C-alpha cells in the first residue's frame, strides 16, 4: 500500500482549518479560565456539555468511522460509573477512581470485542443492547449497589461544593480535549487512513490489506474508554448511582441524535451535534415526553432526508474543512469522489 505521503501533510491544512484549530485552542483557553466568571449553575451546564461532546465523539468514532452502530453503548457509561463507585468504596480518591474505572472498562471491552465485532450490522447493534441489559442486571446483584435503589459517591463529600464543582469542570474539559485530540491524531495516523477506508467501503478496504478487525477493535476500545470517562464524570456531578439511570438506552439515543444531526462520520459533526443537543435540551428538556418524541422524530427525519447531517451539508455547500483528518485531502481528485 503506497500513499503519496512525503511531506504532503502540510497541504492538508487550509487557511480555514488553520483558523479553526487556532479558534479551538483559543476556546479551550477561555473555557479553562471560565469558572472564575461563571455562576455555579453555568459551570454545571458547561460540564454537561463537555460530557455530551465526549459521548457524541466516541459514538461517532465507532459508528461513523468504524461502521459499527451500537445500541448498547450505555453499558460503558454505566460501567464507568459503577467501577468509580466500587473503586472509591475501596478507598481510592474519587477523581482518580473515575479514570481508573475508565481504564478497567476499556480493558473489559477487549475480550468483549473478540466476539461482538464478528456480528454484522443490526446483529451487532442489538447484540450490544443485550450485553448492556445483562451487565445492568449483574450490577444490580452487587450488594454495594443495593439493586435499583442505587448508592452514592459518598467520598466526594470531603470536598466543599465550590472546589468539587470546579474540579469536575476542569476534569471534564481536560477529558474532552484529550479524547478529541487523541481521536484527531488517530484519524490522521495510519490507523486513521484504515478507519476511513473501512467507513467508505469495508470490502474494498479488506481487499487492499486493511486489517479491518484490528482497526475496529481499536475504535471499539477507545469508544468504551471514552464513554466510561463520561459515565464517571456524570456520576461525579450527580453523585448518586442508580443502575436504571446509567444503563438506560436513553444515553445511546442521545448519542445517536447528536451524531445523526451533526453529521455521522464527520469529526466536526459530532461536536456540532453535541452543542445543538445541549441547546435543545436547555430549552426543551423540561417538556419531558414531548422533548423525547421530538428527538426521536428529528433523528428519523435526518436519517431519511439529511443522512450526512448538518455538517455534511455545510461541508458540501461551502467546501469547508475545519479539522482535516486523514490523507484524502492531499488528493484533490479523491476528494471529489467523496461528494
Amino acid at each position, binding site marked *: 500500500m503506497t500513499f503519496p505521503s512525503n511531506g504532503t501533510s502540510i497541504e492538508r491544512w487550509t487557511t480555514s482549518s488553520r483558523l479553526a484549530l487556532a479558534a479551538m485552542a483559543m476556546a479551550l483557553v477561555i473555557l479553562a479560565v471560565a469558572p472564575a466568571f461563571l455562576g455555579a449553575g453555568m459551570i454545571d451546564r458547561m460540564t454537561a456539555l463537555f460530557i455530551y461532546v465526549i459521548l457524541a465523539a466516541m459514538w461517532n468514532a465507532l459508528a461513523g468511522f468504524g461502521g459499527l452502530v451500537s445500541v448498547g453503548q450505555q453499558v460503558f457509561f454505566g460501567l464507568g460509573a459503577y467501577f468509580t463507585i466500587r473503586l472509591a468504596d475501596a478507598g481510592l480518591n474519587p477523581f482518580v477512581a473515575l479514570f481508573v474505572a475508565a481504564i478497567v472498562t476499556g480493558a473489559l471491552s477487549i475480550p468483549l470485542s473478540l466476539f461482538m465485532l464478528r456480528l454484522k450490522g443490526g446483529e451487532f447493534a442489538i447484540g450490544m443492547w443485550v450485553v448492556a441489559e445483562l451487565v445492568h442486571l449483574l450490577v444490580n446483584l452487587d450488594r454495594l449497589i443495593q439493586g435499583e435503589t442505587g448508592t452514592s459517591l459518598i467520598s466526594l463529600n470531603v470536598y466543599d461544593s465550590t472546589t468539587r464543582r470546579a474540579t469536575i469542570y476542569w476534569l471534564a474539559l481536560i477529558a474532552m480535549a484529550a479524547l478529541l485530540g487523541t481521536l484527531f491524531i488517530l484519524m490522521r495516523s495510519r490507523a486513521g487512513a484504515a478507519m476511513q477506508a473501512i467507513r467508505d467501503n469495508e470490502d474494498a478496504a479488506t481487499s487492499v490489506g486493511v486489517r479491518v478487525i484490528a482497526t475496529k477493535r481499536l475504535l471499539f476500545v477507545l469508544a468504551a474508554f471514552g464513554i466510561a470517562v463520561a459515565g464517571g464524570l456524570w456520576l461525579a456531578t450527580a453523585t448518586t448511582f442508580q443502575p436504571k439511570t446509567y444503563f438506560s438506552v436513553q444515553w445511546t439515543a442521545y448519542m445517536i441524535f447528536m451524531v445523526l444531526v451533526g453529521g455521522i462520520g464527520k469529526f466536526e459533526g459530532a461536536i456540532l451535534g453535541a452543542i445543538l443537543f445541549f441547546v435543545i435540551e436547555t430549552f426543551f428538556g423540561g417538556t419531558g415526553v414531548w422533548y423525547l*418524541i421530538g428527538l*426521536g422524530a428529528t433523528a428519523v427525519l435526518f436519517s431519511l432526508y439529511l443522512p450526512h447531517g448538518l455538517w455534511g451539508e455545510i461541508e458540501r455547500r461551502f467546501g469547508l474543512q475545519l479539522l482535516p483528518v486523514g490523507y484524502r485531502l492531499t488528493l484533490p481528485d479523491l476528494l471529489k469522489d467523496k461528494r
Partner: protein
Amino acid sequence: MINTLIQGILLGGYYAVIACGLSFMFSVMRIINLAHGSLAVAAAYGLWLLASKFGISPFAGLLIVLPVMAAFGWLLQRFVLERSARGGTLLPILTTFGLSIVIDNLLFEQFGADTRSLAPFIGNLSYASWQLPGHIFVGKLAVMMMATAIVILGGLQFFLSRFALGRAIRATAEDPDTAGLVGIDARRVNAMATAITMVTIGIAGAFLAMRATFSAYAGAPQLLFAFEAAVIGGAGSLWGTLAGGIVLGLAQSLGAQLHPQGFLIGGHVVFLLVVFLRLFRSGVPTFSKIRAFFLRSPA
C-alpha cells in the same frame, strides 16, 4: 422440575410468535426493525383501548387491530423504510431506533405510566389450565400461543412457497432488479411483506397483553426477546424460530428457579453463549441463515 421445563417450552411459543415477524422482515427487506417491540406494544394498547372503552373482546378486537397494523405497515414501508434502506445497512437501524423512541413516548404521553393488561377482558383464559398427571398444570393460553406459533410459522412457509405473492416476495428478496424484469413491482411486494409482518406483530402484541401486564416502555424487552429467539434458533428449518423461542423460554424459566433476578439473566446468558459458540464454529452471522429459512424453496 418437569413443571419448569413444560412452562419454559410453552413460553417459547410466545417468543416464536414475536420472533417470526422480526426474522421475516429481515429475510425479505434485510432490515432489522428496532421498532419491532414498540409496534407490538402499540397493538396491545389498541386492543386494550377497544376492550376497555368499547367493550370489544380482544379476540374480536384483533379483527380491527390487525388490518390497521397491516395498513400501517404498508405506509411504514412506503414512506420510511424504503427510503432508509436505500442509504445502506446502517441507516435503517438508526431510523427504526428513532421510530421506536417516538412510538414509546407517544404511548407514554397518551396512556401514562400505569401498567395495563388484557387479562380482565378474556374471562378466565389468562389463568385457566388443564391438569396433567403428576400435579402439572398447563395454561390454556400458553397452549394457544404455542399452537398459534406453529400455525403462523407453518402458514408463512406455505404462503411463501405456494402463493403467487409469496413467490414474488422471495424473488424480490433475492434480486429486486431481475424480479422487476419479469413484471414484479418490488415496491408493492415489499409493502405487502411489511403488512404481513405487522399482522404477526399485532398477534404477538395481543399475547403479550393477555399473558402479562405491559406499559409504554415495554417495547424494548420485547425486541430483545424476539432478537434472542431468532438468533438462538438460527432457523434452517420451520422449527428453527420455534426452537429458538423454546430455548429462550427454557433458559428464562430455569434462570428464575436459580435466582429471583435469574429470569432475564438466564435468557441473555444463553443468547451470548449461542453467539459465542456459533461464531467460533462457523463465523457466519445468524441472520443470513434466517434468510435462507424463509426464502428457500420447499423441498
